């Protein structure tokens, strides 16, 4: 103890220096705000969508007099650059330096997986709006106590694929008469897992055989050999799965005028900026999209959100939020609804229980159009027969009266218009083959 006493002045000086150097992290706040942290990339369209969706919701709440008895919400952000280790550092920063109460995430799969362990350690309520990896939901199902503070308000990829197979059956097989496909997917975790689901379900459910599989490097610059191989296989269409640099296959498909139609998953096509980004070479691309997607008709509340978004961000990209922008906007509302009910974000169990009971139902034309609620522990999804604890309450069977549809299919036309083509309940356009397909 004497040693410490002797060194106290020196230690205090050192501490002061370190505090100064780290930016005076612990400057006292006058009104004790609730701190919401954002984790994700800062500059990607998807990252920006989550940030802006959350920002608008937070401003609305603050303007309406604050939360939890009049406290204001402070929004802090930490960049991950879509890098795994930066993701862990950012999660630590939000907790240790910013002392956040709640985290909203616009992280991609592997980044979420990396900070997930820190989340379990800090026990910070966290809502993911972007990653749809079912593996994370599986962790919540299997180790509920460890991961119960985690929620994901986008339908997991398994749900996306399940409904997409219905599209194959109802439209591609029944209407277009396609019988075989070339499964062309990128060599990423996302590509491999979606391809796996399609491989297992397409033939038995939709009756479309897979004539050939082409797995390609995500950095591929030249798709000509791949497209040629696909055409040579004699299949009726290409099923593309692309999440990284997705403009490349889309625009090369148009530039090369590939002779068979192409559909599937093209993440770049989720945003309104797709048309500009491809320089107008996006026509003919159709993709499944998590909801609410570009090209989708909106209910009044969501339309008001879009008006605010446009007024606030103008022509800065993304000019129209991606699905996760909507998810972040409503996600903030869900989280604070739960916090009001539980008396705050602590104790954790109370908040988690309240969060499980949140239910934001959006109606359009007097019918449920969209719903932000979560699967509870032990609840079984009737069609797949398994649990999806803390995933958004999705619905994969018409007429979609239990929850939101897991996805819709959107189609970009050659004139630059985009429309939803499936499921019928949400459709405002039809599936069309590109003009150069014979």
């Amino acid at each position, binding site marked *: 103890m004497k040693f410490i006493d002797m060194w106290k002045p020196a230690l205090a000086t050192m501490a002061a220096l370190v505090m100064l150097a780290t930016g005076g992290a612990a400057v006292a706040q006058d009104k004790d705000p609730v701190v919401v942290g954002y984790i994700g990339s800062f500059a990607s369209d998807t990252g920006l969508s989550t940030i802006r969706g959350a920002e608008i919701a937070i401003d609305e709440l603050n303007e309406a007099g604050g939360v939890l008895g009049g406290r204001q919400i402070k929004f802090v952000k930490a960049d991950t650059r879509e890098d795994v280790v930066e993701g862990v550092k950012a999660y630590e920063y939000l907790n240790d330096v910013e002392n956040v109460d709640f985290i909203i995430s616009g992280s991609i799969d592997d980044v979420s997986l990396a900070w997930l362990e820190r989340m379990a350690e800090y026990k910070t309520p966290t809502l993911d709006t972007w990653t749809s990896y079912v593996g994370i939901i599986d962790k919540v199902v299997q180790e509920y106590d460890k991961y119960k503070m985690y929620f994901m308000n986008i339908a997991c990829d398994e749900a996306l694929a399940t409904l997409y197979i219905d599209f194959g059956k109802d439209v591609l097989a029944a209407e277009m008469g396609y019988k075989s496909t070339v499964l062309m997917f990128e060599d990423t975790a996302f590509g491999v897992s979606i391809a796996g689901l399609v491989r297992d379900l397409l033939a038995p459910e939709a009756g479309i055989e897979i004539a050939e599989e*082409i797995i390609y*490097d995500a950095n*591929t610059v030249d798709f*000509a*050999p791949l497209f*040629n191989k696909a055409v040579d296989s004699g299949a009726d269409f290409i099923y593309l799965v692309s999440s990284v640099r997705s403009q490349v296959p889309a*625009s090369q498909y148009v530039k090369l005028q590939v002779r068979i139609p192409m559909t599937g998953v093209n993440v770049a096509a989720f945003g309104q900026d797709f048309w500009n980004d491809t320089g107008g070479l996006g026509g003919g691309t159709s993709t499944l999209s998590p909801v609410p997607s570009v090209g989708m008709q909106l209910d009044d509340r969501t339309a008001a959100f879009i008006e605010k978004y446009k007024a606030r961000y103008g022509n800065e990209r993304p000019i129209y939020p991606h699905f996760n922008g909507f998810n972040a906007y409503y996600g903030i509302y869900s989280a604070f609804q739960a916090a009001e009910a539980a008396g705050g974000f602590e104790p954790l169990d109370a908040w988690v229980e309240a969060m499980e009971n949140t239910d934001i139902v959006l109606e359009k034309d007097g019918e449920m159009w969209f719903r932000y609620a979560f699967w509870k522990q032990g609840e079984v999804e009737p069609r797949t027969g398994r649990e999806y604890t803390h995933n958004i309450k999705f619905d994969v069977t018409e007429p979609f009266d239990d929850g939101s549809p897991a996805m819709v299919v959107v189609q970009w036309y050659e004139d630059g218009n985009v429309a939803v083509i499936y499921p019928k309940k949400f459709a405002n356009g039809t599936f069309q083959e590109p003009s150069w397909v014979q």
Partner: protein
Amino acid sequence: MLQILVQGLVLSGFYALIAVGFTLIFSVGRVLNLAYGSFLMLGGYIYYQGAQVVGLPKFPSLIIAGIAGAVFGMLVYRILVKRLSGNVVAVEIATLILAVVVQAAVVLVFSPSPKSMWPLVPGVLRIGDASVTYNIFIAAVVSWILLGGLFLFTGMTHMGRAIRAVSMDSKGAVISGIDPERVNILTWAISGTFGAIAGVFLATYTQLDPNMWVTPLIIAVAVVIVGGIGSILGSLVAAHIIGMLETITTSLIAAELRGVATMLIIIAVLLVAPKGLFGKSEL
């Protein structure tokens, strides 16, 4: 089969275009410019800004990109490389850091979102069963023209011969009255221009994104290693070996092994023939 041949040839020509600016600097200055990929990226972004944002016609935009490439090349030489002259490893590392800085700058200015571009020359060339876009076909033709031009330049003109002399023996060249400073500046300018033009083709062929410097750099490095230091002919042959091998791997074996095949060639050549297949100390 025809398809593989046509595609392989065109891709190889394109790879030669990507690599030639890199080879040039390596043979004259004996330094590896790991910021070479940034030359391509800048060329692509400047062309994009000109042709697709400002709305200039394509050809002037291409010229502007080429000039910007030359200026950037000279700046890199003057500000970084000259200062570290003689220390090959230091140049390598400084240019690697520069590449990362340029990437961060591009993210800041242009956002990290990838951008696709209109082809320089739209349309598809169909030869029998095979089809290639005019865009990459033109890139390959431009590559052959530029390489031919470079060959003539180094053989016929005074300045070209000076470059060649420095690449063979820089000390000897100084003795015979050549100013190595001028030669170096010129080489970096040429390299910058070639890089920027290759970048425009690369970007119109694929897309623009702030990570796009890595792939062409790896291609250029692979070409130089396989071809050997400072041989234009070697680069040309190496570009064809790599281009054909990639096309064959993608078409016949498995598309995801594309990069793996290139890495294996690099390792094999460095172990078996560290000087490359045509490794000589002349241009």
